[in-house]
């Protein structure tokens, strides 16, 4: 039915099967849109957040998907600036993932902030003393850059490229894509940092407060490092997942190895930096604020296990696996390690958002617990469904993995040669 829209030489499931796949995700998206609509129309009383617990599931989601979306800028940086040409095989997929992550984050932020008709206020009347101003500006700019980077992928669709204007525009835009990759790297560097800096400057929250370099707290640098480390792992993980779901080989194994090596190296540096930062914080920053660090971990369920899980289980261990050639060569080690790296950064964002706000800071403060309302969960699910849908459509109609066709032919050639040998 839609075959003329699908690239030649690649195999995709039938339209009926594809409809069956997208149906539950579409239902989830509409449920989430209803939940988000309730929050926009009736206000944040629909959520379980309050004046004290002002950050919840949505901010955790924002921080996590923005870290995962870093794969787009980092892959672009490695490919177009450092010329790691092997990564051409995953750059389109990375751009789609980046676009999905950033647009999802902006959409959820819009629901969280509310008053969408006044969204332009954030640009016209910014709080010049807030790190969030930098975040807002950078994310908006980077989302624009990602949308422009996504354009050539869309315009390369078999049917669209029949229109000469689209074909030529795609060709010319592709020639200048390295400029956008450079701009994307610059923007990502700063907004990932500012998101971390946002927590580091919270003097009233000694659990999050950190010292640093000039105006930047250490969390500024830790967020940049962790995002750069987890981005390639997330690309690796999604590519592997798409290969499994579609039952097709999409990239060469050496691409996985490069992504794993880069991710492992950065994760190791991040784990080291995070460990040093934690030691400084435990021994100096926190006691100077009047809070012995052990006190933070006396509140259940946030015991010291969470710190060990974040740094050792989901930091050091996956870094070591990804850095060991013998281990990362085996899918059984590679994929869980990449998943653990992603889980580690997600856990870090959870700790910075939820644990920070749950802990009491004044003698009369209670320990707060928070569980999101169904409207918050619904909005969260809408972003997940939106991501799956955009990726599914992109995978079906655009060339997300340029080597797919070639690998298919190579596989047949190998079969032919093995048959020849057998004869």
């Amino acid at each position, binding site marked *: 039915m839609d*075959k*003329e829209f699908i*690239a*030649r*030489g690649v*195999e995709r499931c039938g339209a009926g099967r594809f409809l069956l796949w997208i149906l539950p995700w579409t239902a989830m998206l509409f449920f989430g849109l209803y939940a988000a609509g309730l929050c926009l129309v009736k206000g944040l009383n629909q959520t379980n957040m309050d004046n004290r617990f002002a950050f919840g599931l949505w901010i955790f989601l924002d921080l996590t998907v923005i870290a995962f979306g870093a794969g787009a800028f980092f892959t672009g940086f490695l490919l177009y600036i450092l010329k790691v040409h092997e990564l051409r095989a995953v750059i389109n997929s990375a751009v789609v993932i980046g676009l999905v992550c950033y647009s999802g984050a902006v959409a959820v932020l819009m629901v969280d902030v509310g008053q969408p008709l006044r969204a332009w206020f954030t*640009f*016209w*009347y*910014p*709080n*010049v*003393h807030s790190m969030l*101003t*930098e975040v807002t*500006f950078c994310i908006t*700019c980077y989302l*624009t*850059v990602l949308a*422009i980077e996504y354009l050539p992928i869309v315009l390369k669709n078999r049917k669209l*490229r029949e229109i*000469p*204007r689209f*074909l*030529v*525009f*795609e*060709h*010319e*835009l592709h*020639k*200048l894509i390295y*400029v*956008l990759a450079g*701009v994307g790297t*610059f*923007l990502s560097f700063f907004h990932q940092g500012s998101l971390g800096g946002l927590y580091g400057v919270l003097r009233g929250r000694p659990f999050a407060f950190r010292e640093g370099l000039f*105006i930047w707290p250490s969390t500024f640098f830790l967020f940049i490092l962790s995002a750069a480390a987890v981005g390639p792992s997330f690309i690796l993980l999604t590519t592997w997942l798409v290969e499994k779901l579609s039952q097709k080989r999409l990239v060469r194994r050496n691409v996985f190895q490069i992504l794993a090596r880069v991710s492992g190296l950065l994760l190791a540096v991040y784990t080291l930096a995070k460990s040093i930062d934690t030691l400084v914080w435990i021994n100096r920053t926190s006691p100077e604020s009047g809070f012995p660090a052990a006190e933070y971990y006396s509140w259940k369920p946030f015991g010291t296990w969470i710190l060990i899980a974040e740094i050792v289980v989901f930091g050091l261990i996956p870094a070591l696996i990804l850095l060991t050639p013998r281990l990362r060569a085996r899918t059984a080690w590679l994929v869980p390690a990449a998943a653990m790296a992603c889980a580690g950064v997600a856990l870090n964002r959870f700790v910075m958002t939820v644990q920070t706000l749950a802990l009491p800071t004044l003698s009369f403060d209670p320990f707060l617990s928070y569980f999101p309302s169904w409207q918050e969960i619904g909005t969260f699910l809408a972003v997940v469904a939106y991501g799956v849908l955009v990726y599914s459509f992109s995978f079906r109609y655009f*060339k997300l993995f*340029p080597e797919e*066709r*070639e690998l*298919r*032919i*190579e596989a*047949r*050639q190998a*079969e*032919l040669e093995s*048959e*020849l040998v057998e*004869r």
Partner: protein
Amino acid sequence: MLPWNYGFEWNTAHVTFLGAFYAVLAIVATTVVRTLLRTRRDLRTHRAESIRWQSDFHDLPPADRVCRHVLTGEIQRRECPNAFDCRACETHARLIAQHPVAVEPQAEDETLGMPFPLDRYYHRGHAWVHPEPDGSLTIGLDELGWRLAGAPDAIGLPKPGAAIHVNGPAFHLHRGRADVRVLSPVDGEVIGTGSREQGWLLRVKPAATGERAFRHLLRGAEIRPWLVREMERLQLVLTPAGAAPTLADGGVPMPDITAGYADTDWDDVCGEMFLCP
């Protein structure tokens, strides 16, 4: 955020931040505007089809982009850097000078059971061109091309007066909802259209004459090794996914190759073989 807005101060931090922000906006806007201007220039200079082929060629698997001299065994490994336009290729000129291609104009070559007359030049996208005594050129589809096309519902030919360019579309084959373009072997102006029964599809007034005008095309002794490679490619394309490719030990290709394979898609096979990814 502008200097006259609330909270702005002329200090280093604010100026740096705003400077960086506006610089980014300016770079992104300049990139888009520059792309639009280049697009307009390309469209005005009719470069769209050349760009299409460059893009198509780039999308071909490396195995399909090999140099013609790899096919003949003169070179071990080389990918064509000129998108199959050997007219400006120094390596080709050097190799041709060293080992001129053997041509017997009167011979009727039955390569792999298919007639491939040696009095004409062949394009790697399965079109041929034949110089006529009146100085015009006739263009047609080679035998393997016809056997791949089978019985197309229609052949989309350009109208007389239309310009065709090397590696641009010469004509289109339509079957069902599928449409495959066949690349032009020469530059020129269409002066007449033919049919399959007439043995040619286009009559063209060439834009250039002489040996150089045909230098990018295959001829004589080059045809057999090229066809052998084409049959190998065809074998791979015709193999259904998940099934081991079957080795043909003899026989000739059927008149409508894809019709003989139930699970094979005409569009996929022709797209692959006519270099139309």
